[in-house]
């Protein structure tokens, strides 16, 4: 299968790197929107209610191990959630009161409560969530996706990243790195102000028509040369690349031009609200990009470090109130909007951070990093809606029922995209690498 597709462990030739390629089998999803809640959102305060924490509040919980604490002031004492939970939708999905809008589309969600990963340190955990490896230098999942499937959209990059208005997460651009793959598979940052994509706007004083004339002349010279050298594939590709670049100068600004969206859509995504407008704009952009065929869009909520991310060490309530308010309406709007346009069926939406937070307290009001059990959810794109999968123990500490590893999650995402995670390999330094390394089981029971 792979050999036929020209993907037997090596990059396709230059000319074809970004051309659309057929999947291994019929895909359920053609695009992914990954809502990355950077910093570590607290599962026991958002989607995984634990009444035991009320009972054990401020008492030492037996499951705590000192070595699991990332920060020195983390104690074994349980901390009850400051938020109230209720069951929502026909499926009765537990969602906290900080997500009132999301609660209205609860029936779309498949909540995985038994996520685990291998690090409780932001840097390595981010790398692992992105690339399966705790170390830098491995391709991120968006790179694997565009490597496997190419791009459906020839006027825009296939893998686009939008950072939070607060800045980049730790690891910076290495989070969307192509690792050992060719640079054409790396994530392209998209900005909401100024030039949407770097270098996509001609310099001041250069009109489109003049640039067109320059490219025409260049194209003729190149074509003459190419005609004399029919074997030179690369030259023909270079001509095509200039043409694509020229088109991108139009298509990229068009794709990010939100003035083309009606007022009602602006309101739906919360663009009329100071708190939610940043993430709302990114969610709306994500929909527009997916409409145009972009394969993989990653949006960050939370940037920089500490309170500007979901990294609620000091005051969980304050931190999560803010970040929920920033994201609630935008995320609910994204699911609603994708659905009303018939795009939710083919767009997989993934929500989660690099880990969760401790059920026990850090200092008086905070929670520490925690990776032994936490929550992510998915929606659309072939996922079984209205589902709760897996469980943590009574404190929310360990994943105890159907624990899910990151390779499992990655395998499932690739599966929905029509890719077999064991066959999608890339040869580097004498080895065929996989996103899932030597692990990964597709979570078949949450597939629709």
């Amino acid at each position, binding site marked *: 299968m792979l050999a036929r597709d020209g993907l037997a462990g090596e990059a396709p030739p230059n000319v074809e790197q970004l051309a659309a390629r057929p999947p291994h089998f019929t895909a359920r999803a053609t695009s992914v929107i990954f809502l990355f809640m950077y910093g570590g959102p607290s599962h026991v305060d958002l989607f995984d209610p634990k009444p035991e924490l009320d009972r054990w509040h401020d008492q030492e919980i037996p499951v705590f191990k000192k070595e699991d604490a990332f920060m020195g002031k983390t104690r074994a004492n349980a901390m009850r959630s400051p938020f109230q939970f209720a069951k929502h939708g026909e499926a009765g999905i537990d969602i906290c009161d900080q997500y009132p809008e999301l609660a209205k589309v609860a029936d779309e969600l498949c909540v995985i409560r038994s996520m685990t990963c291998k690090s409780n340190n932001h840097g390595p955990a981010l790398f692992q969530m992105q690339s399966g490896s705790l*170390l830098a230098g491995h391709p991120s999942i968006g790179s694997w996706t565009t490597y496997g499937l190419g791009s459906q959209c020839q006027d825009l990059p296939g893998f686009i990243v939008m950072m939070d208005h607060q800045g980049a997460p730790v690891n*910076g651009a290495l989070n969307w790195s192509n690792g050992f793959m*060719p640079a054409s598979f790396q994530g*392209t940052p998209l900005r909401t102000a100024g030039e949407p994509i770097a270098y996509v706007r001609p*310099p001041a004083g250069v009109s489109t028509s003049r640039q067109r004339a320059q490219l025409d002349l260049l194209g003729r010279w190149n074509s003459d040369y190419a005609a004399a050298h029919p074997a030179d594939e690369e030259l023909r590709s270079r001509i095509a690349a200039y043409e694509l*670049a020229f088109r991108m100068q139009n298509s990229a600004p068009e794709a990010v031009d939100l003035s083309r969206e009606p007022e009602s859509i602006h309101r739906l995504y919360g663009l009329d609200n100071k708190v939610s407008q940043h993430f709302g704009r990114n969610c709306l952009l994500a929909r527009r990009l997916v409409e145009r065929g972009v394969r993989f869009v990653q949006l960050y909520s939370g940037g920089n470090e500490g309170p500007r991310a979901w990294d609620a060490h000091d005051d969980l309530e304050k931190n999560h109130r803010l970040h929920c308010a920033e994201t609630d309406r935008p995320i609910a709007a994204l699911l609603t909007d994708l659905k009303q346009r018939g795009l939710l069926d083919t767009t997989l939406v993934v929500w989660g951070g690099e880990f969760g937070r401790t059920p026990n307290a850090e200092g008086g009001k905070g929670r520490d990093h925690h990776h032994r059990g936490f929550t992510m959810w998915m929606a659309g794109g072939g996922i079984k809606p209205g589902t709760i999968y897996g469980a943590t123990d009574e404190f929310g500490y360990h994943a105890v029922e159907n624990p899910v590893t990151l390779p499992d999650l990655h395998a499932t995402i690739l599966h929905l995209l029509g890719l077999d995670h064991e066959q999608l390999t890339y040869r580097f330094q*004498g080895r065929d690498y996989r996103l899932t390394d030597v692990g990964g089981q597709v979570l078949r029971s949450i597939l629709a």
Partner: protein
Amino acid sequence: MKWIAIVIAVAALVAGSVRANADDQFARAVQPILARHCAECHGAEDAEQGLDLSTATSVLAGSATAAVIEPGNSAESLLVQSLASEADPHMPPDGQLSDDEVRAVAAWIDSLDPATPVGSAGISEADRNHWAFRPLVRPPVPDGNDEGWSNTPIDRFVWAKLKSAGLSPSEPAERAVLLRRMYFDLIGLPPTPEEVAAFVGDDSNDAVDRVVDRLLASPQYGERWGRHWLDLARYADSGGFHNDLDRPHAWRYRDYVIASFNADKPYAQFVREQIAGDELADATLDTWIATGFCRNGPSNDDNMGKGIALEKYRMDELDDIISTTGTVFLGLTIGCARCHDHKYDPLSQRDYYRFLAFFHGAEKRQLELDSFDADELKLRPVNGKPDAKSPLAMVLTSHGQPSRTTRLLWRGDVRNPGPVVKPHVPEVLESSHSAFPAEAARRIDLADWITDAENPLTWRVIANRVWHYHFGFGLVATPSNFGRLGEPPTHPELLDWLATEFRDGGGSLKSLHRLIVTSAVYQQASDARDDAFAQDPENRLLWRMNRRRLEAESLRDAFLSVAGSLNPQAGGPGVHPRIRPDLLVASQRNKWPVVKREGAEHWRRSVYVYVKRQLQLPLLELFDAPNTSHSCPVRDNSLVPTQSLVLLNDEFAREQAARFADRARHDAGDGARAQVERALWIALGGRRANSALGRGRCVRGRAAGVAGTRGNGSRRRRPRRAGRLVSRADESERVCICRLINRWPIRAARISCIRQAPSRGEIGWLAPARRSATWR
């Protein structure tokens, strides 16, 4: 010797037949039982502790450390013992085989001939016979009539291959093309039109030799070839992880590399210094700095974790060092054997940890450079706060360190230590010269072994790398993997000849360059020929020279050079050219400084541009500057529209274009035609200089035609002759000329516009006398 081989062969045959019988019975009676109870942990795919219970052979081979059965004696067999219900450890950990099942396993063991060989199958003759592990022997140079084609022995090897495939080599490249090739190849910069004119007009026999000597003697040679080495050494000026901490002293290693190439340091010495410069008997400041090779990998110095996490982090760093050491010097992917035996090459997990043991006692340190005294070293620990003020070097040393015991780690897991191992070289490469005292072996012993004349890999690997950089394609297409998954050499005899020539000539890289560049195969034209293309489209037999896109650094350096902007200052801390402020957000902390306007201090050669792991200079990154997380043996050659966008719209390109236009005016005076002619001279690097001059009018005509598209369609003409004129220019030159010509009418009409007048690309160079004077 022959009889030994025969005895071994017979023994192997006997063992083979015994094992065949064992196989048969095992498959029927035992395999289903073990598959049911044991395969989850001890299957072929995932053999815990190296124990694979899926076949008779693998059961006989045992675990990574011990045999698990004693043929003919089930009672003494660990496998049967551990199946007993009271056994400790008991297998399977949470299950129990029935008595019948245990009896079946025991019966099979008892049925085996006690002479059946057990234990690791070890290194087979086939393993030792892998082409790259065979002793390096100088092959005879092919003779026979080569119709006077050959310049060097290299050519005779290539000729012989071509002839046997029914192919012939290409014509020699045009002189101007050849000169340009040599310039970009040896110093990474284009020649000036004057240099081209001089070379084209020089028909003396030693014209090429003199150019090669001049280029190899120029300091730009080290900047060009040192950059190749920095790719391999995963060089960067920051740590990468998390906060991407600055490495304010990393550049000393970069300068060490450049200086080593310029000095034509013998390769063995170069290798020894980088692996063990601190342990040399005659250690100097430079050799200490050389250990920066072991320090270049990504690191997380302000966030290393603690306890188990810290121990794991340390092992990751050591893995980076030995994986890089293995691939760079030996072409051996030993890093693959960290968690299990290598799946393809005869490298065991034990080999990995024995190799690691050479480095295990060493620590990352900062060496104080003020008043360096090899007898009284001032070393500081590495912590999360880089000290940019004091003169320091990043070094690796075991100086003042207690020795460390190295244990094999099952599945590479620090929580799962296995037996103690001593420093040693991979078993498959053991030979008389690897017999050093294992107890006290240090990195210098490893370095000595690597650089020993008898090492079969070292010399082949470096000869192939040099070939790869000259031709864009190695004789072995996988320069860092000489194992079974690597490509075999296309010209094995040529490779061995080059390797021995290099080794026996004292490891002089400059001599090797001279040999290659003066060869007929190097000097061929690069045009595709239908006959040969159909048969060998990848040009593996070298019937022509390969055509190549310029590397990122050469592209940027050529921009600077044709614009007259290049600041030739060498060495020192990395420079931060302008990155648009809106791109700076992509690095989280320790940000790239905001540069409002670039000046001469930024217009240094690209090898001196600060390599920030979280944010590389976009122009370089887009044109495939290496990702510095791992050693990079072969650069990608990607082709994406963002490259075109950066060439069209980036401020750097525009500014250099304006300066290029200024230069043309400065050189040629006020006449528009003379300016066009001069610009073409520079842009074409003097190539086809006569025709370029002769067609100046034509270019003007074309310029008018383009002007016509801006409002006066009546003057539009097809640029036939202009097209032909530049048809041989490289990609970026075409952009440059195109931009220049497009703007010409505006410029002629309104001189004040010239500041915005664009042009770009890699193009000629200033006349030598003006080189240093013209950057402003």
